[in-house]
């Protein structure tokens, strides 16, 4: 399994990695903004899951999400962001996010979102 972690905070990416170790993910890749993420996807994709921050320099998370969906890349995406307003959540879901996690979060809460998202993606793929 390959998971792409996109967040401009290295601290947050490390927190993601610690959570992912707990669910036995095989491999992770990282990007600090949307532009870098597109390069990583092109070079190392496809990924089984993407954890995606919203507010980032160069290209923000919602723009990246719209871009990858336009490219017909349907990697499951969990937005992990401080953007907590209902309007933002709706915007992300409409843009193609599969799940949404508001920062701050507990490791267990993020782990639960990841497992839930992967389970739904697997069920959808086999349907």
């Amino acid at each position, binding site marked *: 399994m390959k998971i792409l972690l996109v967040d401009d905070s*290295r601290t947050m990416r490390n927190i993601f990695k*610690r959570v992912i170790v707990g669910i036995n993910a095989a491999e992770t890749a990282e990007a600090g903004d949307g532009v870098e993420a597109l390069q990583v996807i092109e070079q190392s994709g496809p990924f089984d899951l993407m954890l995606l921050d919203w*507010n980032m320099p160069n290209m923000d998370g919602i723009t990246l999400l719209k871009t990858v969906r336009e490219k017909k890349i349907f990697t499951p995406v969990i937005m992990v962001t*401080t*953007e907590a307003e209902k*309007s933002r959540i709706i915007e992300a879901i409409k843009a193609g996010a599969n799940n949404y996690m508001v*920062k*701050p979060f*507990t490791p267990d809460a993020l782990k639960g979102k990841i497992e839930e998202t992967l389970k739904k993606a697997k069920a959808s793929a086999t349907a």
Partner: protein
Amino acid sequence: MNVKYINPFLTSIRNVFDTMLQIPFNIGKPSLKEDPVPRYDISGIIGLSGGVTGCVVLNLSEELALQLASALSGEKVNKVDEDCTDAIGEIANMIAGGAKKDFPGGNNLISVPSIVIGRHHVSYPRGLPVISIPCDTSAGRLVVEVALKENFVPVAAGVAAENSDRKMRRVP
């Protein structure tokens, strides 16, 4: 400043400490900040725009920055380096982002954080009162300073560092 814009910060600070830092803390009474000079050497600054304009500043000492960075990252952080400032920026980001969801009006945007280290001053939006929210921990006090205006005319919020031989910013 409307108290409806301050209470969300109290809730958000509690939430960040309880959820991701998990160290004992005590939030004090908010007060009007009289002195424009930050009390401590490290500031994490977030700009807000949209329904409100202004900025939020997380101001703290190096000692406390190291403790909070260690608490967030889960690893001992021994010096004020990029890892430390990255963690402080993320804490500022979570406090500001968590607060804005409870503002009376919507459509508010936050900037990526900027971090300044050393002797500095913060250029708050002109003419706005700055509300200071103290938060005490075993490693010292951090202060969350809030200067917001409920209008739709962009107000520049920036920071300048003075006499500092160590300046670090997260590149926006």
